Structure formats: C-alpha cells, structure tokens
C-alpha cells in the first residue's frame, strides 16, 4: 500500500519512499541529533534496538545516558520521564506494546496530566508505542487505548495514519511542552510507504486534522489505520455507486480539531465515525457529541459509528477479523447513511 489515495498528504518536495516505521525512526533520530535534551527510555530500546527495531543503532550513536534500557517497570519509566521533563529534558518513553501502558496509568493520569495545572510546572514528555490489531497477537498486544485517556485533562494524544504524519507528529510531540501519547499503529509499520522530503523538516502541528480524500456526499471521520480502510471504502463507493466520500483524518485526538470536522460535515451533511477500538464508550462518542453540538442543523442523517465489536481483541484469525471493523462495514454503513 502506498499513501496518497487522496490529496491531503501532499508532500510536494521530492524525497525518499520510506515506511511508516522508518518515519518514526527518522523523527527520533533527527530530534536527538538536533536537540540534546531529547532522550529515549524503555524496555529493550538500546541493546536490541526496540522490539520493532525502531531505535536500532541509537545506542551506538547516542550512548546509554540518552538511550536507556530499563527494567520491566512501566510506572518507573513514565515516572522518570516526568521528572526528567520537569528538569527541561525531552523524554520519549517507549511502551513495548501500548497495551503495557496500563501499569503506568496512575503516573500518566494522576501525575503527568495534572502537574502543570496543579503546580504550573508542566511535563513535556512523549509516551509512544505500537497500538492496534490485525497481527493475530491476541488480547494484550492489539489494543487501542485512546479511550482510557480521552477524558483526562492535560494529556494530548496523536494517532498518525501516514508516513508524513508519523514523522511530523512525532516531531511536534517531542517539542510539545505537555505530555503527549503517541499511538503508532503496528499494522502500518511496514505496510505503508510514503515520500518524505529530504533535507527539510516535516511540519505537522498537533491539533490539526487533515483531509485524506475529498468528497462531497459523506464525511468519514477517523484516525490511525482506519484512515486507509476508509479510503478503500471511499474508492469502492466512488467506483460502484458514483458517490464521493470525504475522509477526514483527525491525526490528533486531544486537542481535537472540531473546526475541521464541522466544516466538512456542513458541506456533506452526513457523518460516519470510525475507529478500530470497540464502539461502546469509545472515542467516537466524543466526535458524535461535538458534531451534534456544532452541526446538528446540517445533519441529514444520524451520525453513525463503525468500530470493533464490544469485546477484547481475540487471537484466532477468523475471530479477530470479525471483531475488527472492515472495509465492508464502512461501505455498508456509508450506503445506509447515503440512502437515509
């Protein structure tokens, strides 16, 4: 799969075709090169170069003060990131799988998120890790955890869908003065490629959505790997039904670019919200609520959701496939909304 189904990713500069994983690696490498306050800590990030080899070669380049292999202690990892951030460093903590953010929940929700509000001293740190399903990895290596943090004031959250955004958002996350959770979708690591400008910085600010594909009949609002499924559904409907879906890639979940959602839905008058996490209590609720509040009069049909079903992520392939929202579901839902 290569990017650029739509027009929104548009890097005009000539560059190299790189993977999503490589884009993450580049962002880390370049930020570490240009800013010696940036450092990485996590399990197996040094010696091994990270479970997905994102930090391969970093230890040799930056030394073990800046690439820190930690014990299996997610709470201590995030704790150390907080303290270092408060000293002006820019820590990037890796969770080997984002599922393992759970033992660090208290540190994130109660310490990192609230520390600026409480004391005026913020903690500009990044916690990143592979999220998402599709790799037949079972209930504990497949989760999407954004909803756990959606209601937590003080946190930011990003979920890049493209190579360019993977790099640009990570760069912005590292430079951000507040705690940012960066969810990279493991299914995209080596599956998508895109062009990155060489010798020039990729700028993707936090808090701005991106139109992945333009359309006039219905807006699919989504993020992460679902952007690609949405684009596929859009292509299919264009071909088979002659309708044009707009695909809006939120990119940042906190703060949310409500303006972009509302602008698009005011044009298309129909919205479908999609994410890979289960529906009940998922992030789609917030999106639906905001559309309701800001674009109610423009809606010609209810806002509807296409998500995973309300279960853990099962392991066996037929189960996992059934659990996850598929292109087919998006197509069905879009047709339902269009015929409404």
């Amino acid at each position, binding site marked *: 799969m290569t990017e650029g189904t739509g027009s929104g990713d548009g890097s005009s500069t000539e560059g190299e075709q790189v993977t999503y994983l490589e884009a993450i690696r580049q962002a880390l490498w370049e930020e570490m090169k240009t800013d010696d306050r940036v450092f990485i800590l996590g399990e197996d990030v040094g*010696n*091994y170069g990270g479970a997905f080899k994102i930090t391969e070669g970093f230890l040799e380049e930056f030394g073990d003060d800046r690439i820190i*292999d930690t014990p*299996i202690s997610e709470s201590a990892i995030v704790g150390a990131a907080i303290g270092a951030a408060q000293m002006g460093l820019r820590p990037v903590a890796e969770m080997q799988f984002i599922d393992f953010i759970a*033992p660090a929940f208290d540190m994130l929700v109660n310490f990192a998120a609230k520390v600026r509000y409480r004391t005026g001293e913020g903690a500009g740190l990044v916690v990143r890790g592979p999220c998402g399903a599709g790799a*037949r990895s*079972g209930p504990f290596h497949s989760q999407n955890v954004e909803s756990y943090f959606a209601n937590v004031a003080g946190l930011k959250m990003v979920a890049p869908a493209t190579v360019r955004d993977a790099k640009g958002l990570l760069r912005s996350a590292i430079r951000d003065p507040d705690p940012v959770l960066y969810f990279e979708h493991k299914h995209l690591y080596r599956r998508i490629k895109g062009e990155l400008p060489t010798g020039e910085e990729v700028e993707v600010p936090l808090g701005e959505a991106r139109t992945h594909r333009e359309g006039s009949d219905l807006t699919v609002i989504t993020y992460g790997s679902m952007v690609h499924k949405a684009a596929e559904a859009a292509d299919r409907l264009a071909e088979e039904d002659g309708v044009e879906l707009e695909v809006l890639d939120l990119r940042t979940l906190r703060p949310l670019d409500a303006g972009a959602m509302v602008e698009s839905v005011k044009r298309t008058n129909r919205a479908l919200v999609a994410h890979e996490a289960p529906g009940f209590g998922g992030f789609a609720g917030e999106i639906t609520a905001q559309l309701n509040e800001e674009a109610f009069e423009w809606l010609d049909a209810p806002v509807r959701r296409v998500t995973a079903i309300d279960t853990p992520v*099962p392991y066996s*392939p*037929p189960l996992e496939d059934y659990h996850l929202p598929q292109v087919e579901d998006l197509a069905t839902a879009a047709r339902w909304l269009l015929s409404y």
Partner: protein
Amino acid sequence: MSTLSATQLRELYRYLYLTRALEERFENLFKQGQIVGGLYRSLGQEATAVGSAYALGEEDWVAPSIRDLGAILVRGVEPRLMLRQYMARDNPMTGGRDNTTHFTVPELGILGPISPLGTQISVLNGVALAFRVRSEDRVCLAYQGDGASRTGAHHEGMNFAAVQDLPMVAVLEHNRWAFSTPSDAEAAVEDWTDVAAAYDVPVEQVDGNHVLEVYDATRRAVGRARDGGGMQLVVAETYRMLGHAQHDDQEYVPGEELEAWRERDPLDRYEAYLDETGVADGERRREIRDDVEAGLDEAVQEALDTPRPEPSDAGSRVWADEDGPRVPWTRRSPVGYDDAPADVPPAARETGGEET
C-alpha cells in the same frame, strides 16, 4: 535426595521430553504458518517448570508464565489441546480467543496469566485466600521471570502474600535474560535470593536445570507452605537457550555463555542420571520418546483437522448473562439493513414524536 519411585522418575523424564518435543512441533508449525502471533519457547528451562510442578498435589493451584509449558503438561493438559490452542484452533480452554499459555483450567488447578507481566502472585493470592476461608489444605505456586519480578504488580503480590502468610510458593525463573535485557540490568542484586529479605520469607536457591533438585526444593517449599509456613521463594538458576520469541535471533547473547549452558542441558543431565541409577536405560528412554512422538503425530493431525472458530463466536461470552453473539450494526442481514431506515419513520414527527 528425592524419594520418587522409579515409575515417577520415568514419568518425570516423559514430561521433560514431552515439553521439549511439543515445543519442537510448535516451532515447525510456526514455520509453516500454522501458529500465528508470538511463539515463546522454554528450551533449556524445562526442568524448572516440570520439576516444580511435579512437587504439587492434585488439589493445588499453579499460575504459569509463558515458559511453563512443562508445568501445564504436568498438571494434565493434553498435548493435543495445547496444539489446538497454539494453532488458534477451536479448543476448550480459550476457543481461540487468546494464545500461548493464557488459559485457566479450574479442574486442573491452572490459573492462566495475562501478557502484562507480574500479575500471577496477586491473582493466586486470591485463590489462597479462598483456601484459607474454606480451611483447605492447599497450596499455590506462581512462576515469574526475573524480568517480570521487577514490576510493581509482582512486588505488591509478594508483599501481600507475605503479610497475609498465605500458602504460596513463588518460583523465580532466573534465566539471565528478559527479552534482550540481561538480568543484571533488571535488578541490582547479584544473588537473586536477596529479594526474599525484603518480604522476610524463606528462600532456596536451586539449580534450575536439574529436575530432581528443582523437585526437591519446591517440595520442601510446598511442604512448609502447606504446614502454615506462609509464603516461600524458590530461585531457580537456569538459562533461556533461544531468543525471546521466534523473531529474536538472540544476537545479543554472548556465545560462550550459551555454550556453557548448553553443557548443562536439563534433558542430557537427567538422562545421565537415569543411566547412572539404572532407572531407565537408553532403550527404555527411546521407548518413552517414541511413545511421546507417536502421540504428538496424532495430536498434530487432530489439531490440523480441527477448524478455527466460527467468526461470529467473537461476539459472545463477554459477560455471563449474554444471550448470544452480539451482531455489529453493519453486519445485520440485508433484511436488517433495509429495515433500518423504516425504523425511523419521518411520520412520527408529525404526531409530535410519539413512540411507534
């Protein structure tokens, strides 16, 4: 030394060999794409899992880690079921919903782990509390890797068990690595039995590659726990002979270290013992191995013949009181779709929004 009968000593051999042979089947099946997701082997550590589990009574409970296939087999889970489990086929333990050793079989006293490390002792503490409130004479045994023992969850579990004087044996598998991290980067201690002092619990260190020593030490610990001695720690000194999982070529491991530990292979050593004592000579052992392999041939075939679960099974069993699989909106029958717009008749608006 152990007071096991010749039959039991041969049974131990059978379990050691079965563990290794079954994992070799797994590896082949993995290479054939029959096992998806992660595959973690316990090569070189079989004696720790088998010897310790063998020291438990039938009524006791165990919480394995990913490298404790041997313990699971000793508890009585059939290889054919393990194959179906590892191959994501339908099976009574998980129905394909989870992988590896992640399952619970109450009848066999097995409480399955989850992936986030360190939870075993805490959860078994609850099992032990149940024993206590029912005045039952049973013991729990929790396995934990050296790396996993650094988690907060593990610490809280150890501390809780110690304070509550629960009949708990923790087997710490000191296999020198936690993925690519050497155990001296996991903890500052040189001697891992030092951990025990912080909880004031008795500890024994044991050669984890010597099945009878593991058996003996665990048996003593289990005995103390059963007799009201509270929480016990056994530190098994062993070594992870392969990478963390199939994808890991273990490049970071010093060759000499690996070589030295290869000399201490638990099967080889036990075979030497069986030779020395005459409990099972080469011929006898070959019979056992042949028997195991024949069983595995059949088991693999059964697993290959077992279908994967029905897709829609994915929607069931979240809660006890569900009627059945919940069908996603977009996967209703075509009739359902066509019906849907009719569910919301604009006419209803005219009559002031009354329910229809």
